[in-house]
């Protein structure tokens, strides 16, 4: 009898909290985005907010920009993290120091990194001054624009900076669990380094890599403070646009903000779904 209740008892506090806060928040956001604002005397549901944002070019530009930022950051960070993990799993002198430095910025908040990137890469930042010192440019405007720029280079640089150690740590942990045996076998069977990486290590790594990449993608898609600090005024990243609409003094903009939040959530839901499917396929094989 107790056995039956044990698992629910163990799970219920966490599930209640997550269901209450997370699902509750999503649900409230959803009905809010449908125009349900009882305190303003609006109780009927409609799709006006979605219609408004889906018919505005500003929304699409923001969406595409955010998608592009997330995609670029995830791809670049993943590639660098694979390289870093391949080096860091080897034994060499000074490894623990390098390891510590590698992990250091896992603990550094995003906001700090963003400000650091701003001071390094703006047109009058540290690198621009170096370029000026060496007569490579004649003034700030000659330095390529990387902050507040349409290509969002500064934002991507910040995400890559922050996420390389994150993905790298996950890959390292993965590599540790399956050791070097498979690769060693493939090498004795005549595979070269690249082949053993491409056909042995990478497939082994891919579930962990995918999970990490999905987390990074979803995180960068919903992050506010980095694009708010480093992004250009127009178009703004989607979370920035949502927050601006939410804090607009015109309360009619709130359903639109919530609709954008729902679109962000929907995209993440697609990510989770994809992850779950991939994970299941991995479990089977």
């Amino acid at each position, binding site marked *: 009898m*107790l*056995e039956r209740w*044990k698992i629910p*008892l*163990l799970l219920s*506090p966490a599930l*209640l*909290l997550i269901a*209450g*806060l997370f699902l*509750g928040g999503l649900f409230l956001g959803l009905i809010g985005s449908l125009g349900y*604002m009882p*305190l*303003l005397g609006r109780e009927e549901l409609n799709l006006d907010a979605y219609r408004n944002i889906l018919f505005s070019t500003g929304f699409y530009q923001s969406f595409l920009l955010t998608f592009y930022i997330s995609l670029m950051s995830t791809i670049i960070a993943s590639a660098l993290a694979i390289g870093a993990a391949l080096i860091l799993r080897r034994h060499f002198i000074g490894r623990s120091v390098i390891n510590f430095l590698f992990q250091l910025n896992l603990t550094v908040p995003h906001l700090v990194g963003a400000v650091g990137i701003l001071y390094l890469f*703006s*047109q*009058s930042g540290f690198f621009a001054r170096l370029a000026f010192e060496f007569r490579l440019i004649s*003034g*700030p*405007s000659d330095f390529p*624009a990387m902050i*507040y*720029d*349409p290509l969002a280079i500064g934002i991507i640089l910040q995400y890559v900076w922050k996420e390389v150690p994150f993905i790298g740590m996950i890959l390292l942990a993965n590599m540790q669990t399956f050791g070097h045996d498979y690769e060693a076998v493939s090498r004795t069977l005549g595979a070269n380094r690249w082949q053993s990486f491409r056909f042995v290590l990478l497939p082994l790594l891919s579930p962990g890599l995918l999970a990490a990449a999905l987390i990074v993608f979803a995180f960068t898609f919903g992050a506010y403070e980095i694009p708010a600090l480093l992004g*250009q*005024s*127009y178009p703004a990243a989607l979370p920035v646009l949502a927050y601006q609409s*939410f*804090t*607009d*003094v*015109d*309360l009619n903009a709130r359903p639109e903000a919530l609709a954008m939040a729902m679109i962000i959530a929907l995209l993440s839901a697609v990510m989770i779904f994809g992850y779950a499917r991939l994970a299941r396929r991995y479990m089977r094989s």
Partner: protein
Amino acid sequence: MYLISKICSELTSIWRTRHELLTRITPKVRCFKIKEPENMSRYPSFKNSIWRRLSFLVVIFTLVYFPLSAQATEKVGYENWDEVVATAKGGTVNWFMWGGADNINQYVTDYIGKELQKRHDISLNRIGINDTAEAVNIVLGEKQAGIDDNGSVDLIWINGGNFRTMKQGNLLFCGYHGLLPNNQFVNWQDPSIANDFGLSVDECEVPWNRAQFAFAYDSARTQSPPKSIPQLIGWVKENPGAFTYPAATDFNGSVFIRHVFYHAAGGPEALLGDFDQDKFDAVAPKAWAILNEMKPYLWREGTTYPNAIASLAQLFANREVALYFDYDPAIFGINVENGIFPETTRSYGLDDGTIGNTNYVAIPYNSPNKAAAMVAANFILSAAAQYEKAKPDVWGAAPAIDVGRLTKEEKSRFTELPRHPAVIDPAALSQKSLPELHPDWISAIEKGWQENVAK
């Protein structure tokens, strides 16, 4: 049997852990609450019930939980000032204001906060925000949620569009000027004080500072800066990349665009009063044409605009652009003192005049500490507080009170104040002062700029 005992032990062990940890965090939660006394008084039913809080945490939405807003509403009508002061004693004022200037923060916390504590036993809680609209939004949200007498904002540094939103939404506490003794120093006959951006103040806010738009340049770098809007247009073309202005979403960017708008309209006279779509449609295309003509000669060819005035300050400090402007000329001196601007920074007004405004403090309708907020508002109008604020090494902000109404000694203290070399003489600046537009005009201009110039 074995199974059952195992499960029991499992459960107890988990329960014990939980109990253990709960008792361990209890003192932490308690010191939490002590740090925030005004919160405590606001939710009296929770004062001594740490356990209830914790149990609430576990069940969040399932627990019945609503005795929070049960508190006696504060009396709104006061007979006289003594009654206000008596009620205010021991109160707290949550003052929401832009928090990005350390000297202003210091003036408010160190001077006003300490004086209020000393004179009236009021604790001032300065809450720094990035944008005044955030505070307006909090009050709006509270109204939406039905929190009508227990809001979290007691005082806001405000003017213009935010004031309009609050006034039109009935979000302000009004009609208390007669109570404030220091109201006598305010010249309410002056239309630029009696109207906040063309909207009548109607005893809904108290003036704090006066400001007038001015330009700044580095005299070591730029010899002859443009002294009028037509000159500026020519100057921008001759000096590509050396000028830009913040986007219309920024307060200062918006006022720069209005100067161009006035120029396009041949002066502000035609635009004063309520918003008129026909007049707007007649002037707007000209203004957008001027701004679009400037665009390729702006910083980064006008492909983007700084998000905020602080970004323009950084561009000026780093010599990326040659001109800076601000609605509050005192900022030029402060930036020089803070090492942001070069020592050779100088400022000037325009020959065709620059726009001036008054900024105010307002009390939201749902503030639970209205008496204390009124005492604070009265204190900032005092000669002492306005004088402290006018000192160039404190802030250098122009007084909102009519100095002529002070005693002779007080008046001479104001006139003898030194002026920072980077800051233009306010008297000279105010010779050519232009009025602000009605907030509806400003919204239309900002929106039009986004659609016709920014894209």
